[in-house]
């Protein structure tokens, strides 16, 4: 049974089949959200929102792209909205937020290869990327998607993806090197 047949079945009322789509796509959507927001719980909440919204809007999925491409687009939209809201909150209470970021990363099940200060610096560097570079970078590094797949999700050419990735890496290098000077 292919994806489109499963989707048609679900729309006809066989809700249980949706679990097939969730299980197949959940981890990669979670990674994409994680790459954009970095925070474990926020990424899980966003992944949940992606699957609920996708379910509610299933009739509007036309099958022009693959279901996973469609999910990625929803995930990117929701994650960027989440980040924009968070940015506004940051302006209001930047000090409070700084402590929250540290407290939250303390809970991560991590190795000791990087410490929390380094982690915060890296998160900030990724966050400072322009949105389109951040999306391309996340899909490439976190989800290990090929440039052609990223191009389809972002609706741009492969050449444009390549240039976004190069600029993202260059910007990250520049940002990370600036931290020493402080």
């Amino acid at each position, binding site marked *: 049974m292919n994806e489109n047949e499963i989707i048609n079945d679900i729309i006809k009322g066989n809700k249980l089949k949706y679990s097939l789509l969730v299980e197949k796509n959940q981890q990669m959507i979670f990674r994409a959200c994680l*790459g954009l927001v970095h925070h474990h719980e926020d990424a*899980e909440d966003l992944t949940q929102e992606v699957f609920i919204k996708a379910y*509610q809007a299933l009739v509007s999925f036309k099958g022009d792209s693959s279901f996973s491409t469609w999910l990625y687009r929803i995930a990117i939209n929701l994650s960027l909205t989440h980040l924009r809201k968070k940015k506004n909150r940051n302006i209001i209470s930047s000090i409070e937020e700084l402590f929250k970021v540290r407290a939250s990363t303390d809970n991560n099940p991590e190795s000791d290869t*990087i410490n929390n200060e380094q982690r915060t610096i890296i998160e900030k560097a990724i966050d400072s990327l322009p949105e*389109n570079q951040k999306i391309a970078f996340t899909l490439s590094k976190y989800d290990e998607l090929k440039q052609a797949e990223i191009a389809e999700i972002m609706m741009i050419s492969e050449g444009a993806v390549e240039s976004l990735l190069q600029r993202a890496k260059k910007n990250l290098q520049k940002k990370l*090197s600036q931290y020493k000077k402080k």
Partner: protein
Amino acid sequence: MNCKKSSGLMLAYKYLNKDQLNELHNHLRKCETCSDIFKKMMQLEDFIEEQKKLNLSKDFSSRIMEQISSNPIRTIQPAWQIQTKRLLAAASITAIIWMGYKAGSFYNATTDSPNIEQEFAYINDVALESIDSWIME
């Protein structure tokens, strides 16, 4: 080799040949600035690898299934239908007011459409125009 070339090689680290790798390593041994940048780029890779090890809760998919059991798939009206419905509603309300009647019940019947439209503005294929704005820097 200068620092500029070294930065360029660092960006393509995974794709360097043996000679290029040697050249880069020789520079990093001598140049503190570049070796510091290199260390940070490696930390960035470690950070991503570390995040990729994170997993969703084990009951994630059953939680989703639980939520959708009480959550119907919404049928979405095409934009022109919503538009037409609104125009018709506006016209009928105007007519009713003009005729001197109260239009309460008619108003109620039309309030749901803007909500649906707004919510799907994000994920509707058409509304994915917003993706275009990502592309423009």
